[in-house]
């Protein structure tokens, strides 16, 4: 399980890097899907099968499909690839790299203070549901109202 965890984590990091440097947008999306799936595996090894499957269904299965759908609608070709290559200069990376390094330092600082162990408890579907409809029911309701608003506005836009 530990090996699987580190393997999936490494794949997630590598494929996320590949998303950034890839000039072909379809390939970049494929790497993003791969990254999300490996994050799902990480969740699974950490003892959260429900979160893992939801990651695969919602992110990799639904949201990325919509991304790909939009890319199909746009006319991507050789010229977009050249444009991407023009943007990918070392100078562009400086500011994001500094910010990401700061974040990483903060994260390492926090994580060094927490004592954690791999695969301690398995959080199944029942536990997640009990939490969602118990202490966090207000958050769930608020999220559903947000989604309803999105639905209504999408309907309004489509009607026009």
């Amino acid at each position, binding site marked *: 399980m530990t090996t699987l965890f580190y393997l999936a984590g490494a794949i997630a990091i590598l494929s996320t890097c590949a998303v950034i440097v890839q000039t*072909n947008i*379809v*390939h970049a999306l*494929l790497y993003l*899907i791969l990254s999300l799936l490996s994050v799902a595996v990480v969740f699974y090894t950490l003892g959260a*099968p*429900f979160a893992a*499957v*939801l990651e*695969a*269904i919602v992110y*990799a*299965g*639904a949201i*990325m*499909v*919509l991304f*790909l*759908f939009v*890319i*199909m*609608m746009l006319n991507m070709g050789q010229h977009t690839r050249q444009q991407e290559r023009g943007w990918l200069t070392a100078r562009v990376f400086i500011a994001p790299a500094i910010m990401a390094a700061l974040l990483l330092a903060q994260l390492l600082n926090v994580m060094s203070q927490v004592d954690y162990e791999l695969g301690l408890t398995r959080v*199944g*579907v029942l536990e997640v549901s009990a939490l969602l409809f118990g202490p966090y029911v207000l958050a769930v309701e608020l999220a559903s109202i947000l989604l309803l608003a999105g639905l209504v506005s999408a309907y309004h836009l489509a009607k026009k």
Partner: protein
Amino acid sequence: MALEIGSGLTIGLILGVVIVVAAMLIWVERRLLSFWQERLGPNRVGPFGLLQVVADMIKIFTKEDWVPPFADRLSFVIAPAIIMIVILLSFAVIPFAPNIGVVDSNIGVLFVLAMASLGAYSVMLGGLSSDNKYALLGSLRAAAQMVSYEVFMGISLLGVVALSGSFNLRTIVEAQEGMWFVIPQFVGFVIFLIAGVAESHRLPFDIPEAEQEICAGYHTEYSGMKFGMFFVGEYLGLVLVSSLITVLFFGGWMGPAFLPPIIWFAAKAGVFIAFFILLRAAIPRPRYDQLMSYGWLFLLPLSLLNLLITGVVILST
């Protein structure tokens, strides 16, 4: 040597049998379709034409494996592999018999749904990387269709999950000891059936590959074994949906004891495979907007209502 869940022998047997069944379906479907259309079908190669599959395979393996020069090579090659991998992985959670299966997973139903949603990539990438307008149209249709019908597929399953109280397919089968779930969940069964046809994009919902409108849809540019993988992948999807219906609504391996459980499972799944072929023989293809409005305006409210009533009944008893 005894068969048990997760042993190497069982996994190998399941993989082999599933792929052979999917390949044989090429012949079964052509034969059944022709009977329903008052024809004879392929009957020249071997007894009853049984060796037609072998002939087809030899032909498809020896064809030129052609990648069009304008295609995006990476996505073009992995697209047919995705559908095979994803559907074969889904078979891992199907309980074929008390002692036959690959894993006994607590998230079986969700795993199948996740794999089904990943299956959409195969169709989309195949069409997008072909750089062909008909392929693109086909994959646009496929994307919208599969994403929409996944929703109804998931919601129609939830009634069964609520009744059995588990996402584990094995527990779901055992919960049907007294009564098959098709009786309390008939509406869910019908919605799952329709969504299953749409999800495996077979006729009458083969809008992504409608020959009369858009050539062959997303696999217009495919030939040889890459096309063969799409082709066998479609039949694998058919077997998967039939097995799922059997497991979720028709008591899986349950049946009178004079036959072994696996035979009961195979018989029930076979009936549904034949039913899907009958659907193909009888029902014409709807228009694309009809498919979409039928899904969102009829199936979605119906499945939500079904879930609501199921919940009320469970809570009140």
